[in-house]
């Protein structure tokens, strides 16, 4: 074979190779992007078809287009309310400035804007409430799980209680929590709303258990060799927990935390409906009571937002797990 024909062969091979690569790239692209998009489109189509055939006493069941409209409306409501608020403060400031101009000793009143919470305010309230409840649950569940994982006797003591309370619905807890909060949280100038505390504690009570159970399993299944190392070094309990127990149980603890947060987020909506905590649950309840022709569309917006936030919270925990975990090669999903 002459040199030129070899060269030609090589360039031909190279072209083939790039073509192969290109195909692979497209394949991967399809898998990563096109398939999920296809799935979503099919879902939207089906939704629209089904929605067209359902008529309720509040009008037709909202399809994707109506839901999109309502989401635009909610954004517009929010902006309108913010503008109103801004102009309210502006007027108040001017009025007070005038007053002070006339009489520098005059007492000026500063009022906070009395307008109603918008959809976005309610999202923020929900997030704060779930975060607070989840935090309380974590602070109780992780130490409890570690103690029960380390000590067989502690586990045997606590296990029946865990198994009994684990399947209890948030709705069962709520009346009790409401009464307890009303009875115990008495203050002239409360820092937290009672409805906030009721919702947060209900969330905490329900999302305690996955973290407890998974932490126990994680701690109880530490490699025996590592425990023996700790015994040979005569590590005291505190160092043993910090250096050996927690790092090896971290993956299981996070599995528990992620399940807990997902549970907590679900429980929160129910709790807010009944406790009238001004979050997404209350939004849905109010819209339902409202019974306008837009209500169902707005509730559907809330449903989607709840879903997306739940998904985002899980990703957030996953990112946190990645940051905390020592094993950077571990595949986390």
């Amino acid at each position: 074979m002459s040199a030129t024909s070899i060269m030609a062969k090589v360039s031909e091979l190279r072209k083939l190779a790039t073509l192969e690569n290109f195909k692979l790239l497209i394949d991967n692209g399809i898998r990563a992007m096109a398939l999920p998009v296809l799935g979503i489109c099919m879902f939207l189509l089906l939704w629209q078809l089904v929605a067209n055939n359902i008529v309720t006493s509040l009008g037709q069941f909202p399809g994707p287009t109506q839901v999109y409209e309502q989401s635009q409306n909610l954004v517009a409501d929010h902006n309108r309310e913010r503008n109103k608020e801004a102009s309210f403060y502006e007027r108040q400031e001017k009025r007070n400035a005038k007053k002070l101009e006339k009489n520098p000793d005059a007492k000026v009143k500063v009022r906070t804007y009395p307008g109603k919470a918008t959809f976005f305010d309610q999202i923020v309230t929900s997030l704060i409430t779930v975060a607070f409840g989840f935090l309380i649950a974590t602070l109780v569940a992780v130490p409890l799980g570690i103690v029960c994982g380390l000590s067989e006797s502690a586990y045997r003591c606590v296990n029946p209680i865990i198994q009994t309370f684990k399947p209890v619905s948030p709705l069962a807890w709520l009346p009790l929590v409401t009464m307890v909060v009303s009875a115990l949280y008495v203050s002239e100038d409360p820092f937290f709303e009672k409805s906030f505390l009721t919702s947060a504690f209900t969330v905490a009570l329900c999302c305690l258990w996955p973290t407890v159970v998974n932490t126990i399993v994680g701690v109880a299944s530490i490699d025996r060799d590592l425990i023996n190392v700790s015994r040979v070094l005569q590590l005291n309990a505190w160092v043993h927990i910090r250096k050996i127990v927690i790092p090896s149980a971290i993956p299981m603890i996070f599995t528990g935390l992620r399940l807990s947060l997902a549970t907590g987020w679900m429980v929160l909506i129910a709790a807010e409906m009944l406790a009238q905590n001004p979050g997404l649950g209350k939004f849905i309840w109010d819209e339902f009571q409202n019974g306008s022709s837009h209500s169902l569309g707005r509730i559907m917006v809330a449903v989607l937002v709840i879903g997306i936030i739940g998904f985002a919270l899980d990703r957030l925990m996953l990112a946190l797990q990645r940051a905390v975990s020592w094993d950077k090669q571990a595949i986390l999903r």
Partner: protein
Amino acid sequence: MIEDSYLQISQVGIEFPTDGEPFRALQDVQLKIAKGEFVSLIGHSGCGKSTVLNIVAGLYKATEGAVILEEREVSEPGPDRAVVFQNHALLPWLSVYQNVELAVKCVFKKTKTEHEIKDWIEHNLSLVHMDHAMHKLPNEISGGMKQRVGIARCLAMQPKVLLMDEPFGALDALTRAHLQDSLMEIQQQLGNTVIMITHDVDEAVLLSDRIVMMTNGPAASIGEVLSIDLPRPRDRVVLAEDPEFNNYRQQVLRFLYEKQRNPAAKAVA
């Protein structure tokens, strides 16, 4: 104190509870070890070699008898009896340096300054030729390197007895040979008292001053003890053709495969 009862395993026996009759793993294990001596325990798997080591370490409690180290009875695990585990048992979330540091701080927290501790860790890592990878995580180094670190961690504790549970069993032949040479060199230099479990006959003869051969379980005990009077330092290549070395090897092999046939092999036959 008699020179050769630095470590004394005296009439040790152990039973493990089971659902039915308790299982007797060891019976009447009797052994005296001198300071600076290198002793290997050899026997078929399941004969209770590891159990003996765990009792000396204090990880198991003997049902009867006692282990006496420097005239004091062993009652719990402690850093004066450091254990090199077969699977290195490094904490995977700590770097090589931090793994050794954890051990050093447990032993020398009160007697060494911060600076001395750092020097001591580095010194011990360089003994096993691992000072170049101090800040790597165990996952990032090879199996042989992990075991080197495991040995450094134990050496750094300056134990009275170094207990090694099949330390090279999980390594390939070349790596094993390297580590055996390193261990011989270090033991020559520091004069550690070592008990090593092995089922590799060559390894036992090459490294040991005495080989303790165990009978098959249940109720295993010491069958024979063989003193290896080969001059040190020992060179594996030279010894391979040494008639005395081969004679020792044959004695161990004869014990293992004629007097104490492998229980598994017996079952097949």
